[in-house]
Structures are given as C-alpha cells and as structure tokens.
C-alpha cells in the first residue's frame, strides 16, 4: 500500500518540480520568453499524454485522433476567450479558466460522439475511425468563417507576455496537477479497476457485471475533456490557431509519448512528454532550413530503436538482465533476494505426490510437523505484506 502512494507522489513531485523550477527562474529573472513557451508546451504535453494514456493504456483502445479533440478545444475555447475579451472582461486569469472549461466541455461532447462508434467497433477499426474523426474536425473548422477560415483563428489578444508574469505556465501546471489527482484517483478506484478489466478481457468484464458501454464512453469523454483543455492552453500560447497543426502527425506524436513512457504508466507518460517536448524544442532551435528535417530522422530512429529493443521477442533475455525496474527492486523494502527465498519456500509446499506420502502412516511425525510449521510461517508473512 505504501508503494502505491509513493508511485502517485512521484508524479505530483515531477510536475511540481517543473513548476517551482519555472517560478524560481522567473523570480531570478532568468526566464527567457522561449523557455516560458517551452514550459507551457511541456505542461500541455503532459496533459495530452496522460489523457491519451487513459484511453490507450488503461482502456486498451487505440486512438489516433487525440489532436482532433485538442483542435475542438483550441478553436472553440479560443473563440470563446476572444469574445469574452471583446465583451469587456479584461482579466486574463478568469478568461483563461472559463474558456478552458468551455473548450473542455465541447471537446468532451465530441468525445462522447466519437465514443459511440467505439461501442460497436474494435481494435484497428476503431483506430481508423478516430483518425478519420481528427481529419473531419480539422476540415470542418477550416471551412468556418467564424473561426477565421483557412487563415486560422487569431488569438493575439490572449497571448501572455511572459516577461511580465509567468501566469500561463503556472496555470498550466496547476491544471496538470489537478488532472493527475483526478486521473490517479480514478485509476485506483473501483471504476479504474473496471476500466482495466475491460482492457484485459472485455467478455470476462461483461460477465462480471461491468457496464462496458458506460465505461468506454466515460473514458473517451474524460480524455477528450482534458485534450480540449490542452487545446485552449495552446490557443493562449500561439496565434493564429491553425487547423494544420492538429494533423494526424500530432496525434501520433502524442501516441509516441504514451508508448515511449510505457502504456498504463502515468509516470512514464509524464517523463516522456517532458523529454520529447524538450527534444523537439532543442532540435528545432538548433537545426535550420533543410536540416530541420534531421529532427524527424533522429526522432524516428530513437522511436524505432526503443520499440524494437523493448519488444523484440529475440531480445527478451537481454531486457531482463538490464531492466530498470529490476534495478529499483533493490531499493524496495522487500528486496528481490528475500522474495526469491519466499518463492523457494512456497515451492516446497507439498505437491500432490508428496501429499500422498504425507498422508501415509509411514511418515515420521516430526518431519510432518516441520512441513506444517513452514506453511504457517509463510502465511503469517503473507499477512504482513
């Protein structure tokens, strides 16, 4: 139980550390606008990756349209914020929060709509539908005059001047922490267990009385809501909000964050979101012109190597020898060697043949005693865990 909480605490700690680091940099006057931009990008990267992880890692459905939800949030939330500004509400923070809620709710609505086919479709078919959804959303927003058409939605009035106040990335990280609290409590609750049960075996989950329809829709709606929030944040950092940004390449980039971090691992998603955003940022600022495409090549090579090394059946023994979690196992309270002893003891529990010998009258009474004693001791240990 203690380990369980520690795992959650690490996630809060990472995000808070980033937040504090950013604030300290601002207070000491070292925060350049580009770095503040990077922090905001990391923030919404974390939100996107964790929310997609909820769908891919916990529900077990492949979604290739996460950027579509972000697009809905960015356009609708962005427009809403611009309208609020024009109608006289000139406080940045309330505008940001209200528009984030509005954008998130609209994205959640779309999540509900896209969740509906998921009740009928499975696996690759659902993946292609989510991909199609992303493209449809983009195409529709591109053609609306209200949203600026092909030129994109101008959100210049929303942009924060990072030199004066670091509000934006503070809000972003606070949203990320709120989301983590919500998602982690969800995952460890009864509902979270129901969701992972659906992932592991849908039919078995149904047989246990889990309402599969409800939970699938629920996960899609929650994930879409947070993606929408991330979209609104994006609208507050960039102008114009352009439909081409939300192409399926971006959905894939989020998916890559989730897969690199490990599906079903929230800490992994956070770390890889931070890492990939930072890597993109560095590569983008270092390489220019045609060399900029070197970024894609580096990115692709890292991706292929990580996945091949992580999953190839032929490299299994290699992975087991150099495993990070085995490395951390040493620092756990109950270390691996002790557990091995336990396992050895349990292996000595009489199998069927020994049982026969045990029941036979030939058995010496004292040896009989010792076997029983062993089992009792192990049971006590099990209780202490």
């Amino acid at each position, binding site marked *: 139980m203690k380990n369980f909480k520690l795992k959650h605490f690490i996630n809060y700690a990472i995000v808070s550390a980033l937040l504090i680091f950013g604030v300290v940099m601002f207070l000491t006057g070292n925060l350049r606008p580009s770095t503040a931009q990077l922090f905001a990008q990391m923030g919404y990267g974390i939100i996107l990756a964790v929310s997609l992880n909820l769908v*891919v890692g916990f529900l077990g459905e*492949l979604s290739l349209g996460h950027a579509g939800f972000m697009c809905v949030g960015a356009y609708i939330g962005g427009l809403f914020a611009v309208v609020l500004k024009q109608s006289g509400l000139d406080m940045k923070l309330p505008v940001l929060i209200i528009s984030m809620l509005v954008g998130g709710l609209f994205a959640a609505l779309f999540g509900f709509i896209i969740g509906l*086919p998921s009740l*009928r*479709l*499975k*696996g*690759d*078919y659902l*993946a*292609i*539908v989510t*991909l*199609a*959804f992303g*493209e*449809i959303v*983009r*195409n*529709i927003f*591109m*053609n609306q005059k209200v949203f600026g058409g092909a030129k994109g939605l101008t959100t210049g009035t929303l942009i924060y001047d990072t030199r004066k106040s670091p509000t934006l990335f503070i809000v972003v990280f606070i949203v990320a922490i709120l989301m983590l609290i919500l998602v982690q409590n969800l995952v460890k609750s009864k509902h979270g267990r129901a969701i992972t049960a659906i992932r592991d*075996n849908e*039919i*078995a989950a149904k047989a246990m009385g889990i309402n599969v329809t409800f939970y699938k829709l629920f996960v899609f709606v929650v994930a879409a809501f947070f993606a929408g929030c991330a979209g609104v944040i994006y609208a507050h950092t960039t102008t114009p909000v352009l439909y081409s940004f939300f192409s*399926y*390449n971006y959905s*894939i980039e989020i*998916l*890559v964050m989730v*897969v690199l971090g490990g*599906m079903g691992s929230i800490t992994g998603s956070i770390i890889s979101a931070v890492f990939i955003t930072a890597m993109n940022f560095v590569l983008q600022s270092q390489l220019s012109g*045609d*060399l*900029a*495409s*070197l*970024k*894609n*090549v580096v*990115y*692709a*090579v890292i*991706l*292929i190597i990580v*996945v*091949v090394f*992580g*999953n*190839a*059946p*032929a*490299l299994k023994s290699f992975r087991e020898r150099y495993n990070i979690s085995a490395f951390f196992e040493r620092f756990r309270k109950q270390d691996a060697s002790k557990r091995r002893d336990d396992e050895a003891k349990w292996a000595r529990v009489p199998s069927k043949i020994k049982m026969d010998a045990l029941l036979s009258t030939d058995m010496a009474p004292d040896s009989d005693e010792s076997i029983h004693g062993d089992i009792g001791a192990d049971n006590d240990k099990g209780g202490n865990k």
Partner: protein
Amino acid sequence: MITLIDGLSLGSIYALIALGYTMVYGIAKMLNFAHGDVIMVGAYAIVITLSYTASPAVAIIAAVILCTILGVAIEKIAYKPLRGASPLAVLITAIGVSYFLQGIAQLVFGSQPRPVSAVWRQLPKIPLLNDLGITTAAAVTLVCGVIIMVALNLFIKCTKTGRAMLAVSEDRGAAVLMGINVNRIITVTFAIGSALAAFAGMFYLFQIPNAEPTLGAMPGITAFTAAVIGGIGSIPGAMVGGILLGVVEKLCLASPLSSYTVAIKFSLLIVILLVKPTGLLGKITREKV
C-alpha cells in the same frame, strides 16, 4: 460523366495503394503506416530519373525496383524483429519508419517541391477520348490500374505463391503445418505491396503538379480508409473501397461542397463502419473467450 471517369481513375490509384495495405494486414496482421511514404519514394524516383533521362519506361522500372527493395528492406529491418510482439509495438515502429522516410526524403531531395518533368506532363493525345473531354492521364491510369488488379488477382488465384499467401492470411498456424514458409511469404507480400505503391506513386504524379516529401501522406490515409471500408484483409474489398472513395472524392470536388471533401470522405468511412463494423466485404469473426 467526365467526373465519373476522373473519379474512377483516382479510385484505381487508391485501390492500388489500398491493396498494399490490405495484403500486408491480411498476412502479417499489421497496419503498415509507412506505405504512404513508399508511394512518395516511388514518385520521387520517377521525378529524379526523368531529370536524367527522357525515357518514361526507364523511370517506371527504376521506381518499381527501388520501391520493391525498399519495402523488403523495411520489413527485414524494422518489422521482422518484432514478429510475435504486441500489435501496438509494430504499429509504432511502422509510424517511426514513416517519419524516417519523410525525414530522409527532406534531407536528400530538399523540402522544396520539385516540379514533375515535362516528359511526364505531355502525354500523347488520344483522338476520340480527348474530344470527349477525358484526359489521357485518366484513361492511362484507369486502364493500367485495371490491368494490374486483374494480374494481381490471377497471381493470387493461380500461382503457388499466391495461394500460399491466401493460406497464410486464412490461418497462419495451419499454413505453417502445411509446409509454407511464412517468413518468405511475408517478404513476398511486402515486395508486391511496395511495387504496387510504386505504380500508384507514378499515377499519382498525374494528379499533382509537384513532388513533395509529404506527398504520400494524404493518398496513404485515404487508401487506408478505403481498405478499411472494403473490409481490411480482403483483396476485392480494397479495390471496391478504393474506387468508391475515388469517385466520391471527385464528385465532391465537382459539387458546391468541394471544401468539405475530406470531411465527407471520412464521414463515409464512419457511416459504413457503423452499419457494417467489418467493412463492406470483411469477414465477421465471432469472438471467443
């Protein structure tokens, strides 16, 4: 009528690409996301060769050979080590390969669009058809597309390798027991799929003015959609789906709703899948516990 012919010719391009997707899916049970970029490489191969020689035949042969080698190399390097791993891992690797090809293309050819050589643009005139308003490009694409598809069908139905491919997609375990070398069949499938992609890239050059490193993305996704509409894994399904999408796209472009073409294309997919969850000609598999 002319729109319909244009649609059919675009549809046969999509069908060629969709065949690559669907064959690989049927046999290796993976979504080959890098397929769209193989088209791009094929198109570039033609553009580059045509800038050195004036002979389209040389260019076509070069493109087909290059793409076939590329397809087999991708399979050997990126996908083969992952055989037996989780499908999602293979999918991500395929995406990685796709990025890699796009990045390499940008490095080698530059991100500037390259105009297609004039040799490719000036096709000989066909008297009767051109008077009717049907372009030579459309006619050539349509005829060649149909010939390739018929040839592929014959190959699959009548040769030993083709039937082995069918057997592997039907039941891999049983195919192994029958003495079929599954690894070799998968390699052959990738080779054929990539060769088809080269042809598709070549015909696609009729449709676009310039070659760009990202030119494979859109036809790639559309053809993938076509394969799913037809029922992924089904070869006739890919042809039907491809031609259907091609016709719908051209009809939309000709109608007042032209700016919503993408949305309409993909909505078609969602509607069809909602009615028939495994596509038009897909097999319905019963789920077992």
